[in-house]
């Protein structure tokens, strides 16, 4: 809890804060929740930092702690996060016309990702980050082969959701 440790943590966290942002992006769907989750992950990382022995890369360790925090919070809140989708009849035509638009496609895909399970979200995020299977396995505490199998399932599940539109 010394100030040296604090300084070291802040320096290394600042360099890697984008990882936390990415996790928040995938696990939340509005700015307020993003900021709340970011803060919660930062606190958890700081609390766990004295236990970091440098056996893995800092970024891998950061992914592990941040994902565990996000998944735990996701489990706690997902029951209350059910979203009511209001259908605005007047906007249906506009949506139909703009369906091929990349922006609309992306919004829909992020919505589908948000509806995946917590572990699938993590996998898709690491896929988008081009993480090698070895590192994905290290982060999730599974073997490389298992990471590959789980990744394929997550991608297939996402594709099914996209096709079900």
């Amino acid at each position, binding site marked *: *809890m*010394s100030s040296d440790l*604090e300084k070291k*943590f*802040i*320096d290394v*966290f*600042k360099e890697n*804060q*984008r990882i936390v*942002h*990415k996790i928040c*992006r995938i696990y939340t769907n509005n700015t307020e929740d993003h900021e709340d989750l*970011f*803060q919660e992950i*930062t*606190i958890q990382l*700081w*609390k*766990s930092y*004295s*236990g970091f*022995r440098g056996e893995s890369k800092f970024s891998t360790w950061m992914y592990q702690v941040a994902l565990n925090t996000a998944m735990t919070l996701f489990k706690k809140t997902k029951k209350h996060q059910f979203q009511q989708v209001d259908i605005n009849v007047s906007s249906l035509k506009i949506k139909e016309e703009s369906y091929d638009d*990349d922006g609309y*496609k*992306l919004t829909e*895909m992020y919505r589908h990702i948000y509806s995946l399970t917590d572990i699938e979200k993590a996998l898709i995020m690491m*896929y*988008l*980050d*081009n993480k090698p299977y070895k590192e994905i396995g290290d982060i999730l505490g599974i073997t490389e082969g298992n990471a590959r199998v789980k990744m394929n399932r997550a*991608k297939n599940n*996402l*594709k099914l959701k*996209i*096709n079900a539109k």
Partner: protein
Amino acid sequence: MQNNMDELELLKEDWSKNSEGFKEYSEKEIYTMIKQKSVSVTKILCLIGIIEIFLWAIYGYIDGQFPVLRIALFTVFFVLILCFYFKIKIEKSSISLMKSILNIKRVILGYAGISFLLIIIDNICNFNHYTKDFMAGLNDGYNQNNPHTTNSQLMNPQLGIYIIFAILLLVFIYFLYLIYKSTYGRILSHLRKNYKELSEIEEKAI
């Protein structure tokens, strides 16, 4: 399938593009964030203190006398808890931190235990007296008298009244238990977690 692959590639492209646009937190902002949790525990402690005083003040108002002993007991323990708590914040090593956490746990558990036990003992010892008070209160309410018009000592409660009062008392005690559990219990579980984390770190260090 090809279309799906295109969509995933599009997503990947957007993902890496968006990653550049995240807010960059400064060192000062990160420092404030990691200190935030300590502040929130202090807030919970203060909130519990206010709720506790408020509840006892209501109880004193209903009972017609100010619960000086209760408030004094609470104040002593509350000051002790805060002292230990602020000591925690300035501790340097994990071992001394763990000792402080154990101390604060003992004080909170001690206070919550003594306080709750006092409520139960008080109600058992004065059960007859409180039942008569309850009956006098019911009588005043039923006849729309001013409070404390009926002399409770003249009341002669029957078995049914004792049973009804005992049930109401149990509900009240259960309600108090729930309050204690969600306030002091919450703090205790937070401390237990902190202690566990620290001991794990210590074990790893050894």
